[in-house]
């Protein structure tokens, strides 16, 4: 098993945001977490990446516990997060953002990865010297994904990559996710756009008020009455 999340509980002060969530991701899968606003999707990803701490339970990556290692060391284990709202460094150039993505790697390795990312996102190469804050929303999402790729992750977690993008750009983002997956990256995807997410996912979990209410293959959930009513608009 590549990632195993076992009974995590996360609090924001007195608020119990994640109530005993367990799930797993196998190598080579696309797994998605869907759910309404405030269900705990982002909190779950932030806990896996070490930005938040769980009070109980364990997160294992490659059968090694990563529950207590600091966030800046998690990425070295091969786990990258494309955070909600992209959070690229707006005052730095495109290329500097990408360099930061490979912070824990040596300069020699960076050059090769930079080429790969530019191949995948030719737009970023055109704008490499541009300040990231001047990019369009779609380009910023590409940069956020490219930046995460710079760490050569085995598992890439994406938090709402379609947020705020025009439909045509959403298609493009999902195409890229597919091609990353084909190239061998395992994907854990959090989405509010349940339809799109379920269409590419091998398996999916539905989050509701901090716990998992439903799970199954992407296809099963896309056809489930409960999911259709709640997340797919009937």
């Amino acid at each position, binding site marked *: 098993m590549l990632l195993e999340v076992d009974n995590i509980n996360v609090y924001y002060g007195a608020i119990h945001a994640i109530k005993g969530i367990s799930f797993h991701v196998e190598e080579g899968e696309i797994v998605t977490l869907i759910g309404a606003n405030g269900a705990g999707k982002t909190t779950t990803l932030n806990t896996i*990446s*070490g*930005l938040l701490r769980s009070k109980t339970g364990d997160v294992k990556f490659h059968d090694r516990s990563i529950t207590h290692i*600091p*966030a*800046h*060391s998690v*990425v*070295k284990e091969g786990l*990258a*997060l494309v*955070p909600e709202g992209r*959070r*690229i*460094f*707006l*005052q*730095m150039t495109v290329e*500097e953002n990408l*360099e*930061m*993505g490979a*912070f*824990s790697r040596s*300069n020699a390795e960076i050059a090769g990865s930079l080429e790969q990312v530019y191949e995948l996102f030719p737009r970023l190469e055109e704008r490499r010297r541009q300040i990231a804050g001047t990019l369009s929303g779609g380009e910023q999402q590409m940069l956020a994904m490219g*930046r*995460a790729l710079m*760490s050569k992750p085995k598992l890439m977690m994406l938090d709402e990559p379609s947020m705020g993008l025009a439909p045509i750009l959403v298609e493009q983002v999902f195409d890229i996710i597919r091609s990353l997956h084909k190239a061998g990256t395992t994907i854990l995807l959090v989405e509010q756009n349940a339809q799109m997410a379920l269409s590419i996912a091998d398996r999916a979990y539905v989050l509701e008020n901090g716990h998992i209410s439903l799970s199954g293959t992407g296809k099963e959930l896309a056809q489930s009455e409960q999911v259709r009513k709640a997340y797919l608009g009937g």
Partner: protein
Amino acid sequence: MKFLAYLISGISLGSVYAIIALGYTMVYGIAKMLNFAHGDVIMIGGYISFIAANYLGLPTLVSVIVAMAVCTILGVVIEGLAYRPLRSAPSLAVLITAIGVSYLLQNSALLIWGANPKSYTPVVSGTLHLFDGQLTISYVSLLTIVACIVIMIALTLFTGRTKMGKAMRACSEDKGAAQLMGINVNRTISLTFAIGSALAAIAGALLCSFSPTLMPTTGSMPGIKAFTAAVFGGIGSIPGAFLGGILLGVIESLARGYISTQLSNSIVFAVLIVVLLVRPAGLLGKYVPEKV
């Protein structure tokens, strides 16, 4: 010729402010806190270089380097013991702690070195006479201006070209995202304090070379003025600290020369108030509206 003399003395005074202001602005940029103890690190730097030169008999340059090393360690220790535990505390708690650290340093200096002012030996002596002696510039002034320019260039290259410098900028923009990149935020903040404190030691030696009375409160007023300079230029901005420092020094020097020595500080702060009314984020600062 008088004007030129005032201008040059203003630029060199401003250079000291700029070097101190860099410490305030870099720390603010990354840790979003006002380190009010920064001025007192200058004073400690002054004492250390004084002791190294006068009691241990070390050459001037070596004594300044010793002071830099001591201040670097002091800055990192202050950050680690006093500020790091408060990383997620309300900013008021951090501010009060900084004021507490400032008094701790001043009173420790009082305890160790006493209240009697020490007479500091300038790092360089002598003056340059130009235009048949109509214009005199002290070598300390020239050295200060050169030091400030060298420091500015070095810092610009560091933050723009090196991996750690870029990591510093990344941390000042978004600490969470920086952590996701694998950047150790605590270590980066320590590094920032280290650089700021090493610069404070240089500033201490230069400052005491201008006005050679060294006592435990020596760092207070220059500290506040340099903080003002940092806000004036736009806090968080490195070129802003440079510009703010120089302008503040020049305004102070011209006010002292043409208007009144007693009023010079009031005039400096009056100018600051006017500038902030027009440009709330300072001269080079970017006004970033809070996202809700």
